[in-house]
């Protein structure tokens, strides 16, 4: 019987997940198994997707869940369909909020990524010789999404540890997760605090930070008055680095879709085909990419 493995992701349109799928496909080609890619934006779609995989006769699947609290449900559903289960990116938790340690997982914690962003910002400020109390921070927030909260809180914790004052951190809630919404929200913050000339910004992803950077440009803050650090490192960030002149978007924390996609798929294949159980927990780390070194960083992560 052919080996069939599912790969379910929460936001199929996002470049990040596209890349994960792409690298998983690469593994599928190498090992000769079938990869079934399904997008599931919410819990209900996810449950249907698992049923669907069961119906297709898959033997196991990898999932990046739309919500970690779905944990027990996913585990039960997988068992009911007799499917092996691994998670990627986001780790499942039980009703008590503790991680489900039985489910093999590969990922990086949202707080960790946020801390990397915070560190990059702090380094940038040091390089420019900014003092913490003359700088304003735009927290482009999307609190509806728990991961987004964890990421920005991670960044904030590092800022605070480096002497940033809480009252200089301004919330710019985006109504949607696209650049335009972030741009509009950040514009308001910038205009409300016209006296602050030096800004840093961070958010859920590259698009959010890009919005803040665009906002700073539109109100006339020069590129050297803004330090924005994004998360993801997909094309929207790379495009920014490719611009002829530097912008306030100084860097992005790249996570490797190759490891997350290729390795998980490979591990699942080994589990299914050779009954070799994967490690319970593999933690990856993000790498900061900047205008001058992004190509190198990407090569290092095996995604160029």
């Amino acid at each position: 019987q052919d080996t069939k493995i599912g790969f379910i992701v929460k936001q199929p349109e996002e470049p990040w997940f596209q890349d994960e799928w792409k690298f998983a496909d690469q593994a599928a080609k190498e090992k000769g198994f079938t990869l079934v890619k399904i997008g599931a934006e919410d819990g209900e779609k996810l449950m249907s997707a698992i049923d669907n995989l069961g119906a297709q006769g898959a033997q196991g699947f990898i999932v990046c869940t739309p919500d970690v609290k779905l944990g027990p449900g996913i585990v039960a559903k997988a068992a009911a369909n007799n499917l092996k289960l691994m998670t990627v990116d986001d780790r499942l938790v039980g009703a008590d909020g503790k991680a489900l340690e039985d489910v093999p997982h590969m990922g990086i914690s949202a707080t960790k990524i946020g801390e990397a962003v915070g560190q990059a910002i702090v380094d940038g400020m040091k390089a420019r010789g900014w003092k913490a109390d003359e700088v304003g921070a735009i927290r482009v927030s999307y609190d509806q999404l728990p991961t987004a909260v964890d990421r920005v809180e991670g960044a904030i914790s590092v800022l605070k540890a480096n002497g940033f004052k809480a009252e200089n951190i301004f919330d710019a809630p985006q109504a949607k997760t696209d650049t335009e919404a972030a741009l509009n929200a950040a514009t308001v913050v910038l205009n409300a605090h016209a006296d602050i000339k030096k800004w840093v910004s961070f958010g859920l992803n590259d698009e959010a930070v890009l919005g803040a950077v665009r906002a700073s440009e539109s109100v006339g803050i020069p590129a050297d008055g803004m330090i924005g650090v994004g998360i993801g490192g997909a094309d929207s960030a790379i495009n920014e680095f490719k611009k002829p002149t530097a912008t306030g978007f100084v860097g992005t924390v790249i996570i490797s879709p190759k490891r997350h996609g290729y390795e998980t798929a490979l591990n699942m294949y080994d589990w299914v085909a050779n009954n070799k159980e994967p490690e319970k927990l593999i933690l990856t780390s993000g790498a900061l990419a900047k205008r001058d070194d992004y190509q190198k960083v990407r090569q290092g992560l095996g995604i160029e």
Partner: protein
Amino acid sequence: MTDQLKKILLGEQGLVVIFVVAFALVSLLVPNFLTDRNMLGLLQSVVTVGIVACTMMFCLAARDFDLSVGSIVAFAGMVAVMASNYTGSILLGLLAAIACGAFVGFINGVVIAKFRINALITTLATMQIVRGLALIASDGRAVGINSPDFYQLALSKFLGIPTPVWVLALLFCIFGFVLNRTVFGKNTLAIGGNPEASRLAGVNVDRTRIWIFALQGVVCGIAGILLASRITSGQPNAAVGLELSVISACVLGGVSLAGGRATMSGVIVGVLIMGIAENAMNLLNIPAFYQYIVRGVILLLAVLLDNLRSSALGRR
């Protein structure tokens, strides 16, 4: 022979016939489609949309509109979980969820019928308010269920078919009956067909509309409970965009947005067509971006076919 065929195709139940033909085609062409497991999975995947479509049909038939269903489903699910956790009694949790749903629906109805505020705006407003409440109550994070019995709501089976599917079937029967055989159903259709005439004939238009929205709320409460049980948690972000799926399923099923026209069989077919399309696309492993296009084309084809049918029939 051809005459008889024509009669079947063009009759009242033509949409159903088209559906049966399409279903047969999909069964033949899509591997793994017509397996027990997949059929059950398919049915379970349409439970939420199907349940909410029952009352959305009434809403549209009365020339109203309800955008708040997605939020109410999420909110009711949260309430069910939180109340169950708090009181330790699942039953109380369920009752609380349904009561909350009914309450929001009732408010919708009162604002729309009594203050004569546009239904679109009113339900858009409650959609936001209720979603906000769900987020605030849970601090934006999913709430886990303490008692594993709660999962049983969705997992338990009767005659090999999961409970939610039974609930769906039951609601289809109930609301099909209500639409065609009760005063409430006829009044709904009359209000949608000609509100002025209904008012002058002594139909209590305001009260009927309030009832419709309240029922919609109750049904959303039920859908929310089943959803929470299925995803084993109450999620404030659940069911975003549900309103659009439900409304399109209804319209696909021949419910007129101009009011006055609705059949339960049509709505069931509409719900199933949408479910089958999703299911078959995943079985066929169609890439995510192309799924958008296929989904759009299927929608168009389905209505186009139905239109050809009814214009061949001579009605306009």
